[in-house]
């Protein structure tokens, strides 16, 4: 078993690093992470594989600054997600999120959902529209930009969520079970699309999944077990 912090091939500096991260809930009664460590390099597709409740989503949230660890060290794109300012900067410019249930705003149109990260950043209207068109075209939703998110199928919604994650050209996409609520065929298409788009955009992906087939299709496979991460 290899060390997930020091990949054997020794390629460049990591984009995201977690060192000895601990996290518990319910005032310490439920210990989820017990010294978890990992590293993700620029441009690579890394699977964080494990059973439900193993702590993979928690680790993803900590790296994305959606939650804070009890102790341990985090470094993402040169910033510490434990710091509020850094968290905002990370979410705005460096990270994209894809969730299991897509988390789109149901009443907003496809276009409005995709451009949310650009609105937060204060991007220009033309610039936003052009970027939305490019992304929607890539995922085959160019003709559905005016449709409301609630009128889309599960697969289409997840494609919109991927576009939204890529809107600000992030360096790292944190994908939490993006195929978890989709049927087998749709799940495969969404996974393929995520991999293809991330490569095209030169973004790294840290993918949480409990499905072995998707985990094995990634560049690297990290297994989360008993609150720790090990390279498979």
């Amino acid at each position, binding site marked *: 078993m290899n060390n997930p912090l020091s990949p054997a091939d020794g390629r460049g500096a990591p984009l995201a690093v977690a060192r000895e991260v601990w996290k518990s809930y319910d005032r310490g009664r439920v210990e989820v992470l017990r010294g978890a460590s990992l590293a993700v390099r620029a441009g690579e597709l890394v699977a964080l594989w494990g059973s439900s409740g193993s702590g993979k989503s928690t680790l993803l949230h900590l790296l994305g600054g959606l939650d804070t660890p009890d102790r341990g060290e985090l470094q993402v794109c040169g910033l510490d997600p434990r710091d509020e300012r850094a968290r*905002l900067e990370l979410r705005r410019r460096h990270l994209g999120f894809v969730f*299991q249930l897509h988390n789109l*705003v149901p009443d907003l149109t496809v276009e409005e959902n995709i451009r949310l990260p650009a*609105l*937060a950043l*204060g991007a220009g209207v033309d610039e936003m529209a052009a970027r939305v068109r490019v992304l929607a075209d890539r995922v085959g939703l160019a003709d559905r930009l005016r449709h409301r998110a609630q009128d889309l199928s599960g697969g289409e919604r997840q494609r919109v969520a991927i576009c*939204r994650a890529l809107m600000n050209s992030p360096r790292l996409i944190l994908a939490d079970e993006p195929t978890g609520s989709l049927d087998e065929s749709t799940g495969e298409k969404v996974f393929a699309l995520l991999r293809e788009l991330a490569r095209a955009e030169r973004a790294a992906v840290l993918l949480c999944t409990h499905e072995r087939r998707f985990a094995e299709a990634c560049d690297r496979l990290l297994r989360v077990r008993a609150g720790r991460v090990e390279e498979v």
Partner: protein
Amino acid sequence: MTRFRYLSLAFTNLRRHRLRALIGVAGIAFGVAAMLAILAVVHGAIGMFERILNTDSDYLVFERKVSDLFFSSVTPAQLASVRARPEVAEAHPMLFGIVSAEDRPVVTCFGIEAADPRLHRAHWLSGSPERFGQKAGEIFLGSRAAEFLEARAGDTIEIGRGEFMVGGVFRTENGFEDGGVFMPLNEAQEFFHREDTASIVAVKLLDAASGGEFKAALEAAEPGVMALENREFSRSYNSFKILHVTAWAVGLCAFVLGGLGVANTMLLSVFGRIRELAVLRVCGFSAGQVAALVLAESLVLATAGLALGALLGGTVLAVLARLPDLQGYMAARLTAPVAAGVVATAFVTALAGALYPAWHASRIQPAEALRYE
């Protein structure tokens, strides 16, 4: 301005929840309408009363330290002293009284002299100003008073405990005067047991610039009275102040209710989309941006409420002005300070109502809100 473009989401959010937004707008609109109507009516009424007092005059002379002009007594000696001042061109005493008539619990009576300029300025429908005070027991009616008392020139009517012959009917632009009964001063003094006194003396100066000199000299000679320039009187008269304060207080109460409506709307809006606001945070919105979004929504509600409230208030005033029972009494007056006050109150109320929801929205923790998906 691109950095504020995210605020466009405020319109989108309100459009998505139209009914909820409409309830918020209605709360502000009713507050605005109530405040506008109350203040406009009160200011109009005050204005009418001011014009009664200010007719062709620069100064008002009345008894010092009385709470209301109805209780003021200016003696004949004091009136003579006013008239003797070299600065004075004309001085017209007036006595106010309230009586009741059949079906009318309150009828305002004005005791004036035959030379009073308002008699000559009025449009006489029957009789003439020259007849005023020529015959004992004769009263003269404003056209509105003649209407509700169902009296014409030559009729005998019961006013209070006395019977009077109607000597003439005239129309004036002032609603209070038009709904009033006019008696010669000496008859009014007898009728109201006021001996020889008047409530006020309206003074016209030869030169308006000599007002200060007139005031100082008169108050030194007659310490029982005070002289106030018309505008100063309007500012300091207790009854006007009470009316102002009451109108603003009632209007503000209406706004508080409107503000609670906005608070309720915004709270529902925030609690109903915790997950959505968490998604915004995940997408890079700062806590401040999320709070600003909620505040912007409430400002949009306030703006729409203001527009609707102004329309509603205007309609209410127009309808009131056309009600037969109120004709002549409704002279709504919307001044710039009142309009500015209503606008400011609407926005402050809407913002105050949105403060807690905005604070709550800004503190949403994305991980917690999205954990149970």
